[in-house]
Every structure is written in structure tokens, then in C-alpha cells.
């Protein structure tokens, strides 16, 4: 038995989390004063900053003591004393890998953008700011701080899509912005509600996540608040039917934008559900389990079906994301150790696999200047290595055992099956559909004779592209064969997360949980 709440973090430790969060921002500040004309300097600087951030993230990993539950390496500072605004960062086995994933993929995002010349300075700065905001979102344990990071993500991403995207970039950027903003509005209201509620109940208003977990709320209020958080995060995930901004955003974003959008930004939605919805509203989470699971299932099948007939390869990958993220949410709302662990691992897996797919699609686009699968064909003849890497990544995405996707998908299915068999049976259809759309896409792009004769002259991967892809492929293989280093850190955090939702699964001593009082005033979904 482990203690549910870790002892207050030691005060005197190196502030790893603060450093890793703000390193990219500091890099961006430096970049801002460098002359715009020095393109290569900017590129190298951005690359260096992201590599240093990766080094810092790895240092955080080594400072993290594995097997322990609760938040570690907590950095805490008073921000506005009179209002009790606090700066709190902390990491557990879930956020740890989100941060690592972010830091791991950022150098790839910079490298793949090497040829961007127009306003490159601002483009790179936007990415560095974005990285800080993303890492901060995963580490913030104060709801106001989280909200600030969460909103801060929007602007650089909006600029990246709208400024450096393809033809319909403005439409896509606006859509992305408005969808997310609309969700955030609910989130802000709910966070403020909690802040004041804490004032009347705990004697001091606070945004501190761990303190807010001790609130007791009327049952109906808790459920409304759950829904407010849920809408904000469901847009980000995205869950059906709030996903329609995603295909547009992905299709129009530049390659690095799609990479980060798919690999990290969507994860913030899923992470928010896990951390805040489950953490703050366990009763409501249980209450809405069927509702959320069914939305996730619809997304799983729906995303796969829509992906089946896409002719734009970026749209195809985007819809496959809807399907894959459905798995994450399904596993999360199974409230089993396996389901949630699988869900968290699947967040990492999706980041690697779908991220790599977007990178490859970008590399194809740079060569063929098209995203239309009908304009490709036979490319494996001229680019055997690129084709081989594409297949490798596609196989990881469709869950071939031995590669990363299988481990997460299997755990999600297993964790779901033991609770509701039929959910797992429905979800497994996506395993077949994924093979259909991925292999069909692969065939149209790579197999057959060359459909455009000029494509016969296209070069295969260059050294820079190897540098982008090989680390990701190594990660895909490593997690597929030996996921233990990840799972052994994820599991304690998952148990901690489930402590109030599903105490039997958690096997931890329940110390304090958000309590609910009164009887439900409304009933959208039946309790499972």
C-alpha cells in the first residue's frame, strides 16, 4: 500500500521543472534580439534550445524517483499573496512522459522546418514559446497557472497555422482558435467557481489543485463543473462531435505545426481529462462514464470510417488521430489500472507514430508538392527508404505487436473489456479498419507504377531527415519491445489518479477525496 498523497515535496532541490518549462521561452527571448536576416543562426539557435530543453527533460527524468506516487520535484512560489495565486509546478508519472514527449519531438519540429525562409525568425520564436506553454500546461498544479499556459498555447499555434500554412490557412487557424477558445470559456468559469468555492469552504480562496481536491461540492454542481472542464478538453482531444476543426487545422498547418498539434496539443486535452476531470470530480467522472465512453467509441469507429475514403493524406492522418485519441479516452474512462495506463502510454505512442506520419507526409509534400494520394503512386520505387520508414510508422500506428502502438492499444482494450465487454468489442473493429485505411493510403502513395513520371527523379531521405526520423523510430521500437521503463512510472501515477474514482483498482489508502453532497439535480447519463 502506498500513501495516496505524497509528503510535501522537499523544499531544497534544484528547480528542474521551472528550468525545463522556461528554457525555451528564455531561448525565444534571446532569439528576439538576434537579427532577422541571420537565418541559419536562428535555425541553429532554435535547434540548440530545443536540444538543451530535451537534455533538461532527461535530467528531470533521472531526478524523478520511479515507483513513488504523488507529485515530485514540486516548485512552489507565492505569486500574488493577497489573492493566494500560487506558482506550483509538479510532475508525476503521467506528466513526466508528456514533457519528455514534447521535448523529444521539438528538435524534430525545428529540423523539419529548416527550409522555411519567410519570417523564419518569428516562426521559430513561435515554436519556442509554444514549447514553454506546452510543458507548463503539463506541469502546472495550480489551476490559474494551468489556464494561463493552456491559453498561451493558442496564440503561437494560431500564428503558425495562419502564418505559415497552406492555401486555406486563415480559415483553419480561425476555426482552430474559435473552437478552442469556446471551450476555454467554460473552463475559466469553472476554475473561478472552484476558486471562490474554496474561499467559502476552506477559508481561503485557492487555485491549488491538490487543495481543491479536498472540496466538497453539491452533487449537481460537481457534475456541471465536470461538464465545463470536459467541453474544454474534449475540443482539444478532440472527441466526437467536437473534432471538426482538427482535419482543417492539420491539413493547412505547416509540417512542424501538424507534428506538434497531433503529438502534443491533442494530448493536453486528454491530459486535462485525466488530471482535472478525474482528479477534481471523481463522482461525476463515474456518473458520466458511459456518456464519455460512448463518445470515445463513436470517435474510434467514426474517425476510422471517415479516414477510409480520404484522398488528402494529411486529412487521412488527421481522422486517424480522432480514432486513436478515442482509444485514449476509452481507456481513461474504464477506470482500471490497465485501461488508464494504456491510455497514457497510447498518448505517447500516438505522439510518436502520428507525429512521424505527419513528418513523412511533409517530406513527401516537399518533394511532390501534393497531398493528394491520387497524384502520388509508385514512390517506393524512387524513395525506398522513405517508403520503408513510412510503412514502419504506419504499422506502429495500426498496432502491430512488437511496435509501440500495440502495447497501449492492448492495455486499453484489456482494461475496457474487464469493465464493459461490448465497448472493447466495438473498439476492436478499429483495429481492422486502421489496417484498411493505412495500407490503402500506403498503397496509393508508394505502390504501383509511377503515376507522375517526374517523380522518378525525386531524392530519397537526406541526412537531416534521417536525423529527424531515426530517433522516433528507435522510440517506436523501444516502447514496443520494452515498455517497462515507461509503464513502471506510469502505473503509480495512474493508481494515484484512480484513488478516488476507483479505489479498488487503485489499491491505495484513500486519504482525501472530493466529496459530493445532496442528490443529483439532473441526470444526463445513467451511472454504470
Amino acid at each position: 500500500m502506498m500513501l495516496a498523497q505524497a509528503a510535501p515535496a522537499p523544499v531544497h532541490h534544484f528547480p528542474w521543472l521551472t528550468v525545463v518549462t522556461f528554457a525555451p521561452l528564455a531561448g525565444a527571448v534571446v532569439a528576439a534580439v538576434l537579427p532577422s536576416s541571420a537565418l541559419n543562426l536562428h535555425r541553429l539557435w532554435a535547434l540548440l534550445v530545443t536540444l538543451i530543453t530535451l537534455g533538461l527533460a532527461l535530467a528531470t527524468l533521472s531526478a524523478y524517483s520511479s515507483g513513488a506516487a504523488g507529485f515530485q520535484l514540486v516548485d512552489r512560489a507565492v505569486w500574488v499573496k493577497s489573492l493566494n495565486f500560487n506558482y506550483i509546478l509538479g510532475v508525476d508519472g503521467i506528466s513526466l512522459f508528456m514533457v519528455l514527449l514534447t521535448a523529444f519531438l521539438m528538435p524534430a519540429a525545428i529540423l523539419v522546418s529548416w527550409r522555411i525562409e519567410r519570417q523564419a525568425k518569428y516562426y521559430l520564436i513561435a515554436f519556442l514559446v509554444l514549447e514553454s506553454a506546452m510543458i507548463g500546461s503539463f506541469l502546472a498544479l495550480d489551476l490559474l497557472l494551468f489556464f494561463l499556459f493552456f491559453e498561451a498555447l493558442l496564440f503561437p499555434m494560431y500564428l503558425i497555422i495562419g502564418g505559415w500554412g497552406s492555401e486555406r490557412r486563415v480559415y483553419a487557424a480561425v476555426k482552430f482558435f474559435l473552437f478552442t477558445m469556446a471551450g476555454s470559456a467554460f473552463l475559466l468559469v469553472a476554475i473561478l467557481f472552484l476558486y471562490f468555492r474554496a474561499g467559502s469552504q476552506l477559508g481561503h480562496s485557492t487555485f491549488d489543485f491538490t487543495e481543491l481536491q479536498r472540496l466538497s461540492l453539491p452533487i449537481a454542481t460537481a457534475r456541471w463543473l465536470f461538464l465545463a472542464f470536459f467541453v474544454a478538453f474534449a475540443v482539444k482531444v478532440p472527441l466526437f462531435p467536437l473534432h471538426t476543426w482538427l482535419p482543417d487545422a492539420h491539413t493547412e498547418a505547416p509540417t512542424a505545426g501538424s507534428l506538434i498539434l497531433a503529438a502534443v496539443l491533442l494530448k493536453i486535452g486528454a491530459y486535462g481529462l485525466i488530471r482535472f476531470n478525474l482528479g477534481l470530480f471523481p463522482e461525476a467522472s463515474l456518473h458520466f462514464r458511459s456518456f464519455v465512453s460512448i463518445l470515445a467509441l463513436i470517435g474510434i469507429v467514426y474517425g476510422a470510417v471517415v479516414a477510409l475514403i480520404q484522398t488528402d493524406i494529411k486529412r487521412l492522418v488527421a481522422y486517424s488521430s480522432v480514432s486513436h485519441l478515442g482509444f485514449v479516452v476509452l481507456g481513461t474512462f474504464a477506470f482500471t489500472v490497465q485501461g488508464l495506463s494504456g491510455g497514457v502510454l497510447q498518448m505517447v505512442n500516438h505522439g510518436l507514430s502520428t507525429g512521424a506520419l505527419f513528418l513523412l507526409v511533409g517530406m513527401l509534400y516537399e518533394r511532390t508538392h501534393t497531398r493528394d494520394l491520387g497524384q502520388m503512386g509508385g514512390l517506393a520505387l524512387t524513395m525506398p527508404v522513405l517508403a520503408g520508414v513510412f510503412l514502419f510508422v504506419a504499422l506502429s500506428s495500426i498496432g502491430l505487436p512488437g511496435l509501440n502502438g500495440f502495447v497501449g492499444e492492448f492495455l486499453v482494450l484489456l482494461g475496457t473489456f474487464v469493465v464493459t465487454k461490448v465497448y472493447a468489442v466495438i473498439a476492436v473493429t478499429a483495429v481492422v479498419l486502421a489496417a484498411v485505411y493505412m495500407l490503402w493510403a500506403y498503397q496509393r502513395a508508394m505502390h504501383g507504377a509511377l503515376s507522375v513520371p517526374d517523380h522518378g527523379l525525386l531524392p530519397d531521405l537526406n541526412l537531416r531527415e534521417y536525423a529527424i526520423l531515426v530517433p522516433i523510430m528507435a522510440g517506436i521500437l523501444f516502447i514496443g519491445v520494452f515498455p517497462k521503463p515507461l509503464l513502471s512510472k506510469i502505473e503509480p501515477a495512474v493508481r494515484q489518479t484512480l484513488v478516488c474514482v476507483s479505489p479498488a483498482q487503485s489499491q491505495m489508502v484513500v486519504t482525501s477525496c472530493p466529496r459530493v453532497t445532496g442528490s443529483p439535480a439532473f441526470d444526463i447519463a445513467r451511472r454504470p
Partner: protein
Amino acid sequence: MNILAPFIPAIPLAGAAVLLLTGPRWRDRSAGWLASAAVAVAFGLAVTVFGTLVSRPVTLRLSHVSLFEWIGVGSFRVDIAFRVDPLSTVMALTVTGVGAMIHLYAVDYMRGDPRYARFFAYMNLFVFFMLVLVLADNYLLLYVGWEGVGLCSYLLIGFWFERKTAADAAKKAFVTTRIGDSALLIGLIFMWSRFGSLDFDRVLPHAHALANGTATVMAMLLFAGAVGKSAQLPLHVWLPDAMEGPTPVSALIHAATMVTAGVYLVVRSHQIFEASGVALTIVAVVGLVTAIYAGLSAIGQDDIKRMLAYSTISQLGFMFFGAGMGAYSAAIFLLVAHAFFKAVLFLGAGSVMHALPDEETDMTRMGGLRRAMPLTAVTWVVGWLAMAGIPPLSGFFAKDQVVAAASQAGRIGLWYAALFGALLTALYETRGTFLTFFGEPRHRGHPHDPPSLMRTALVSLAVGAALAGVLGLSATSGLLPKFLTPVVGPTKEAVAGPSELVLSIISVAVALVGILTAWLVYLSGRIDWMALRVRFASAKRTFQRGFYVNDFYSGAIVGPAKLAAAFVAYVVDRRVVDGTLTGIGRLVSSSAGAARRAQTGLVRTYAVGILLGATAVLGYLVVRS
């Protein structure tokens, strides 16, 4: 010596990795030699492991080698662990032995192919995954091999991916088998939810305690996987198309790897099937129906490789039939014998294609090849007679025992049907033989026997096909049945029907009837078989199209599914869902009086609004405190 077990798959894996990463650097045939050597070493290791196993007392013929924990969350734990027992070693020997010969054959067969090294990398990978499948000590690792062979079939069937037909066939193989795989995956999860483990040793000994219904569901989920991978009705449609791959691939898929996996799975899991009561009967009936269906379809084929493909489906049906009758060792015996004779036949077909212009596969344009290709013809004849069930060749003993099991179990109806299936086997295989190697030459070019490496492979496999019968001279006291007893239990005693000898005589008689019929039609000269084809054109076409099952799928499932997907994507997603959401957005913005603004302006307004709102809220908080 158990420690050697993980090296059996590891060495082909290493071969595949080296060849994939160093690719085109290999000169001439060296890549082929390397790959063949890898499989040969794996075979040597398998022999060593087998030797140590045999040297132990019967009760101690089981060991495990666990490498590390693969997936472990909560109470779910599964290791990368290998198992050495009689069944796994027999399978490993078959896979590596027959696989090595096929590799050797391919060294020359694939010569000159621009992707030569990659071909052998995939072949080694195929053998690796199949070895993982048969040597795994738990169901999840078995599943790794299971999906892995699916991948390799995809890579190899589509090896000549420039051809659309090859690329299509590859995808079809992967997707069709994955339908079964997904059921198997659910089956494994179901199994874990009941037993709390996926290790063979923690599942199978307790299977008898399952309730009938539970056992039936579990067994059927496993069997669904087997049906896909082993190309049984209704998921058999991928196998005839799989002929698009280079011929050594077909030999590897049909003889040594992949399709036999389903039979192995059923035999390995027989305790679960037995606990159900009806599952074994279902297995037997599906197998038998498939055997007869594919036998009839084989008669209608003119393409030599498609004929062999349907014959594989049919023989696999017999294996399932045997397993379903509880004659597990007979099923495995047929699996081993089939590996030899089917490899001979496929490689023989490859030699014929190799010798004729334009890779001819149409048997109506062959004939009389025994004169030009005597060695190929002799080895083919051994394969043919073995398959038809003529003593003393291996197929006779194996198939006889499978068919006899029905009679001995007192299930006379099934026995008659199985005899009919055996008759069809003799008929189509003889037809193929006569059309190809006998009669008047109808072919073009100047065919000749293949080069020495290919000949070596053909002869070795033919010797195997001829002699493998010694493994199971008797269903009860033969070498193989006795060796497999610790895994599959003793062969069931006959409870009904005539004696073994009488059953054998009936079997041989049936085979001879099939052969004679084919002789009468195709070789005696008394019947103009070309005229017969015209007269019974519609029957011929029905057989040739495999009773239109594939056409039914493309018309009734694939077409409508595409339409439905298009409807969901373009109508539901774009118009209904996105339309509603953006509609709500427009409504909100127009009520806010921003309708006329440009979209960028809208965002700016909105952002400023949010900012002002947030500031106001924060300001309120500051004032309030």
C-alpha cells in the same frame, strides 16, 4: 540446452536485420546465401534442442526460457518467454527445415531481382515471426508471431508492388487475416479475464473448469483467428490471390509458415475446445466444408499456382477436420507431411514457370513437361502421389489417419464426407499433374530443369515428402503420436467402425478412383477434355471462381462499405456535424453583431474580448480581496 531456444528465432531475426540495414551492398547471391545460412543454423539449433528433449524422460519434456517481462500493469503480466515441448519443437523443426530448403531454392530463383537482398530479409523475418509463434510460452507472444507473419505475408505477396494486382493481393491478405486476428485478440483478453494469465501453463490445465458456454465463446474467438490465418471458409479469399508473390514466397506461406498457424493454435489450445463440447465439432465441420469447397474449386483452376492455393485451403481443412475429431497428432502429422509435399509442388510449379516463357502459369498451355524437365517431374510426382494419399508416401499415412478418425469416432456421415474430400484431392491433384507434365506438349519455348541449387531443394523436399510417413506409421503407436502425447494426450481409441487396415484400404481405393477418373478424362485420350470444358462451361466457371465467394464480398460488402464511408465523410461529417458546429458559431457571432466582419477581424475581436473579460474578472478579484 534450453537456453538455445531463444536463439532459434533470434538468428533469422539477425539475418533479416543485417540484410535490411545493409541492403544493396550484398553482391550477387551472397544475400541469399546469408539468409539461407541463418535459417539452416536455426534448423541446427532446433535439432539440438529436439535432441536434448528426446534424451529426457517423457514426463520431463518441457522447459521454459523467460527473457524479460514484456508488459506488466497491475495484475496483468506477460513475459517474452519461450517454450520447449514436443509440439513446439516439431513445429520449429518443420518451419526451419522446410524453410531452409525454400530459402536455398530462392537463392537461384530470385537471382537478378533488383530487390534481391530485401527479399531475403523479408523471408528471414517471416521465419523469425513463425518461430516466435510456435515457440512462444504464452498467448500474447504467440500473437506477436501471429501478426508478424501477417506482416511478412503482406511484404512478400506485395514484393513486386509495381504490379497493382500484387499490391492489392498483399493488402487483401493482411486485412482479411486481421479480421480473424481482431477476434483472436478479444479472445485473449477474454481468456485473461477468466484465468488471470496468458501463460499456456496457467490457462490450459484449468480450461476444463470453464463453463461450457464460456469455453465455447473463447474457443470460437480463437478459432476465428485460425480461420483467418489458415484461410478457411469464410475468410479464405486472400490465399488464392496470394499467388501474386514470388513462388518461393507461396511455398513458404503454404508449407512452412503462416497458414499452418491456425492448426497449431487449435491443437495447442485443445483443452479449451474440449471444455466447450461443441467447439470441436464446429472446427471439424468448418474444416470439412472448406476441404470439399476448396477441392471442388481446385478442379476448376487452370492456373497452376491457384490450383495449388485451393489445394492448400483444402488440405488445411483436413487438418482442422482431424483436430476437430480430436485426432490432434494426426492433424500435426498431416501438417508436417503437407509442409513437405506442398513445398515440393510449389517449388516444382516455380521451376515450371521459370522454364517457360513469360512465367507461364496456365496449365492448359503446358503438357508433356516430364520429357523436358525430368527431375522436376519426378519430384512433382512424389509430391502428387503423397498428396493424393498413395502408400507408402507420407500423405497416405497422415490423411488416412485424419479421415479414419471420423470413422473411429463413430461419426459415419462426417467420414463419408471426408472420403469425398479425399477423392477430390486425388482428382484435382492428378488433373494438375497430367495437364502439366503428361500428355502432348502445348507449351511454348524450350523448357529445362532448373539449376543445381533449385534441384537440390526439390530433391531434398521430395525425399522428405516420401519418407515423412515413418513418423506416423500408426496413429496410436507411431513416432510422432507418441512424441506428442505429453502435449495433446494419447490418441483416442477407436470406438466404432472397421479396423485400421480396412480403413486404409478404403482410403487407398478412394485415392485410386480419383486418380483413375482424372486419367480417364485428361490422359487416356478417350475423352476430349477441351470439349468437356466448353460443354460444362458454367460449372467450370463456378468452380474456377471459387463459387463466387470473392465476387460476393466485393459486391455485397466492399462496395456498399465504401459508399457508406463516403456518406459519413462527406455528408455526416462535413455537412451535419461541422455544419452544425460552425452554424452555432455563426449564430453566436452574428448575435454579437460581428457578422459582417472578416474572419481575421473576428478572431482579433474575440481575443480582445477574452482578454478584457479575463482582466475584468481578475480586477474584480483584486478589488474584492
